[in-house]
């Protein structure tokens, strides 16, 4: 009943490991060094990819939460919970790498810039989601509270994305078009490959966490049956 290795999970692990080796080649040997930011610009590939995968994970929280409220399906709640946990891991690492990139680029570790602040708020919302799930009662009530927070929290993502358009910000619009957002083709290739590699890692972690969550739920129900016997 505990989580075991399925062939699909092994394939995902092998694919993400192999793609990470390719990514390291692209990031360090293929992509050119940025003229203005120097060698520290290479942090960008991991930073942006982890941000993207974090948002992708929170999209699955939204899907799982809506699905749970609509169908009351345990599978959907499991998907929301597992995605939220992995999303928090990716967002935490995105914030830390952002801080480490800000210091050599801007001369400061942190600034209350709209994009940075809304990203920090996103992280706090999903940390709150995990805390809510840990402290609320097991079963429908906890899952319902979590689903509502999971849906509301997702609305921060378009705000983060559009913050560079709505407000004055020091954060570059690196993935857009135009003079500020233009990337050299080699840099764009490295960024795309990095995003694919991290998405594969996310898929692997998600299958692993889903399986563990299912085992935890089965164990809980087994324990409550045992207490009744």
């Amino acid at each position, binding site marked *: 009943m505990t989580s075991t290795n399925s062939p699909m999970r092994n394939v995902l692990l092998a694919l993400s490991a192999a793609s990470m080796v390719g990514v390291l080649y692209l990031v360090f040997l293929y992509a050119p060094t940025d003229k203005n*930011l120097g*060698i520290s610009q290479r942090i960008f590939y991991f930073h942006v990819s982890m941000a993207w995968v974090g948002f992708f994970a929170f999209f699955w929280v939204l899907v799982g939460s809506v699905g749970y409220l609509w169908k009351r399906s345990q599978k959907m709640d499991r998907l929301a919970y597992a995605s939220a946990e992995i999303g928090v891991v990716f967002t935490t690492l995105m914030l*830390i790498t952002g801080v480490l990139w800000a210091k050599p680029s801007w001369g*400061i570790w942190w*600034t209350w810039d709209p994009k940075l602040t809304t990203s920090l708020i996103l992280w706090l919302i999903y940390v709150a989601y995990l805390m809510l799930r840990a402290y609320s009662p097991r079963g429908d009530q906890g899952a319902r509270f979590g689903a509502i927070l999971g849906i509301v929290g997702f609305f921060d993502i378009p705000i983060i994305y559009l913050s560079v358009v709505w407000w004055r910000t020091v954060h570059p619009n690196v993935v857009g078009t135009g003079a500020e957002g233009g990337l050299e083709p080699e840099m764009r290739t490295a960024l795309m490959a990095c995003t694919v590699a991290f998405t594969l890692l996310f898929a692997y972690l998600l299958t692993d966490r889903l399986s*563990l969550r299912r085992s935890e739920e089965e164990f809980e129900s087994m324990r409550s049956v045992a207490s009744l016997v």
Partner: protein
Amino acid sequence: MKATLTRTLIALIVLSAVVLALDADSALAQQATPEQTAESQGSDPEANLPYLFAAYSVTWIGFFVYAYYLSQRNRALRREVEALREALGEREQRGGG
């Protein structure tokens, strides 16, 4: 245990916010543009290598810690299942005897 963890997490968040706010306030005035950064780096293209090293190290350590947490949780769950089975077996034996 959970309460201690929560209190520690909240304290860390508040402390980080205060430190970051103080650091940002004092440094905002002397914030460097990318061009100034490039100038200050001058002829040494590897000036920021420690930041690059730190960012990649933190990323991999983060993922390994999370993978380790998952495997430990899995192992603990397996132990709990075994203990529950044993307890149930003993109860059945007592009930039968």
